[in-house]
């Protein structure tokens, strides 16, 4: 059972979780927020399709969802409403696996 539940697909690359997350850096600086950017999902179009698929995979599911290697991406204005970018795993499989048409490797 995951410690987090995805409550909303905000846009095609950003999700909202419950409860919020807390991230403590090595210097004890603490950030919190409820938004997570899915790392590696680079979209040019098809937003509606991606949102629908994310809803099916992450919101309407009882499978374990986990997050790995968080990186702060938006925290300057308010450390209590920060955003992190993470690799998102669904039942130990990177969510990107379910979006083969949107993965761009260079």
């Amino acid at each position, binding site marked *: 059972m995951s*410690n*987090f539940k995805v409550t909303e697909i905000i846009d095609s690359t950003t999700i909202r979780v*419950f*409860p*919020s*997350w*807390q*991230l*403590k*850096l090595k210097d*004890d600086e*603490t950030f*919190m*927020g*409820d938004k*997570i950017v899915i790392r590696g999902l680079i979209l040019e179009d098809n937003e509606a399709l991606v949102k629908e698929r994310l809803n099916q995979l992450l919101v309407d599911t009882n499978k374990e969802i986990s*997050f790995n*290697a*968080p990186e702060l991406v938006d925290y300057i204005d308010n450390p*209590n*409403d920060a955003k*992190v970018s*993470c690799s998102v795993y669904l039942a130990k499989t990177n969510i990107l696996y379910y979006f083969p048409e949107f993965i761009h490797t260079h």
Partner: protein
Amino acid sequence: MLNLVPLEVFVNRIIKEGNAVHGYTVFDNTVFENLRIIYSGKLLEGITYLIKNSKDSFYTFDRFCQYIIYLQFQPALGLTLKFSDYKNDTDAALEEYKLLRDNNWRKEDTDKIMKIFQEILEDKNNTARLVIKKPI
């Protein structure tokens, strides 16, 4: 390695009243555990200093995520911390507000509680989960 930790606070008992949910933490070490989650830096140092050096009772209200929190210290009894989530139900918050006024709570306290409730209604960023620890 950095990890995302779910935002959770620890309570010894959860009571539901209509739409409202109240969590109570009654053991000092669990209250301190929560205070370290809720506050940080100088504010945490200040509260900790006040608790450890106070000879008199005191209490304060504040906001943490979707909760109105009520921290109370009594020298003979120690610390208690109450988390109240009114689930955006204005009627439930008003009902408690009226009850407190009827029990002769100070107007500035009841007004502060309603001010925090209003803040929670207007800003829904961040939600924390109540986790029962050492149930009573």
